[in-house]
């Protein structure tokens, strides 16, 4: 299997054409699941039992089913029901629903690990519950959640490749198109892998910098 360096070089711009979609999807999923995760964790930790149970049930549902199946569910399901979602949109929906769940668990773990005792210390000093959260718990929890969150962001970027199976024109999709046209599978996959590695390494570096900035 000879490696055609020239072909590899020519493949890069083609693949980069899909980078915008990959990035756009990644950023949207990250942003929306961070928010959705907050909603879920509030429900998960609420005083109302039905709400707690509903959120816990939701979490079990999303973590025990593959995200690909969720994507197919929305893509084909809505199409049949008359609402034609694009591969991108169906993927976005499924990934936000799933990763929002994972984010909420990360938040919950962070909060619980900071611990009830810290909260008590705050209350004993005369803070109101929300103040105690904002001043005592939140800053400490943020430091704790950064590592698992980094892993989750990396996982999100990798999962975006799945939308290529629904014809969304991301890097993976472009790669397959290119291979079908040129049969240069070796070179294209080498490039594609390298590009994903660069993306994931960049995220890891950015998050490491964020950790340092927060003075861990």
């Amino acid at each position, binding site marked *: 299997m000879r490696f055609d360096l020239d072909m590899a070089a020519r493949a890069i711009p083609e693949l980069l054409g899909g980078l915008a979609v990959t990035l756009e999807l990644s950023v949207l999923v990250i942003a929306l699941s961070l928010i959705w995760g907050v909603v879920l964790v509030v429900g998960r930790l609420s005083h109302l039992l039905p709400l707690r149970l509903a959120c816990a049930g939701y979490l079990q549902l999303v973590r025990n*089913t*593959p995200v690909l*199946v969720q994507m197919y569910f929305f893509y084909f399901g809505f199409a049949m029901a008359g609402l034609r979602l694009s591969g991108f949109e169906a993927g976005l929906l499924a990934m936000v629903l799933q990763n929002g769940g994972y984010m909420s668990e990360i938040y919950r773990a962070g909060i619980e690990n900071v611990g009830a005792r810290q909260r008590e210390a705050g209350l004993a000093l005369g803070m109101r519950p929300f103040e105690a959260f904002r001043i005592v718990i939140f800053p400490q929890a943020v430091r704790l959640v950064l590592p698992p969150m980094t892993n989750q962001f990396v996982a999100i970027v990798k999962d975006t490749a*799945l939308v290529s199976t629904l014809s969304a024109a991301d890097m*993976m999709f472009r790669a397959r198109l290119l291979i079908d046209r040129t049969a240069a599978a070796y070179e294209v996959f080498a490039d*594609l892998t390298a590009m994903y590695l660069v993306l*994931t390494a960049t995220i890891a570096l950015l998050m490491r910098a964020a950790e340092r900035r927060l003075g861990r």
Partner: protein
Amino acid sequence: MPNVLIASLPYLLRGAIVTLELSAVCALLASAIGIIAALAQSYGGLVARGIALIYLYLMRGTPMLVMVFAAYYLLPYVGINVEPMTGGVLVVSLYYGAFMSEVFRAALASVPRGQWDAGRALGMHGRWLMGIVIVPQALRLAGPPFINTCIMLVKGTSLVSVIGLVELTLSGREVVERTLAPFQVFGGVALIYFVICYSLSLCGKALEARLPHAH
């Protein structure tokens, strides 16, 4: 309403069996790879550690879907039979081997320092120390995260559907194509995955409860 689902259930369940078979084989292989990689990473010489780290970096940074397609397109050139099952076993085991390695590495590191002291103070070293004192404790510590990784692995097998392995997800797509009832069918598929994965997680919780947690 769920008539379609009920009618196609036998077909879906056959796909589920393929999923389970694939998962079981890959879980075993991934564990083996994981143990080797963890030992190489923590106790290996420069070369072993280097290989392990490169392997881990590649697996953690590359989407498994890319690997699945790569296996499909590239393996024929290397002369490997391009049956979806073979490609699937190869890719899924390699990919989750990296996660398993992290599970075992973390477990080894979680064995309290005092256990090393006690073993050494009694005159143990090397394979004795590892085999009698450290590894048994590490395996117990690894239980719950191991099960979680297995659950991830089961979900991951759904990706092998894209290269034609008729496991649960592809079975679902085939049925949908025939019956045009995507919500029902994929709902059913999700339900079957749920049953498999949730059962595994219950095993995990039972394991966690049974395990004597030291100190």
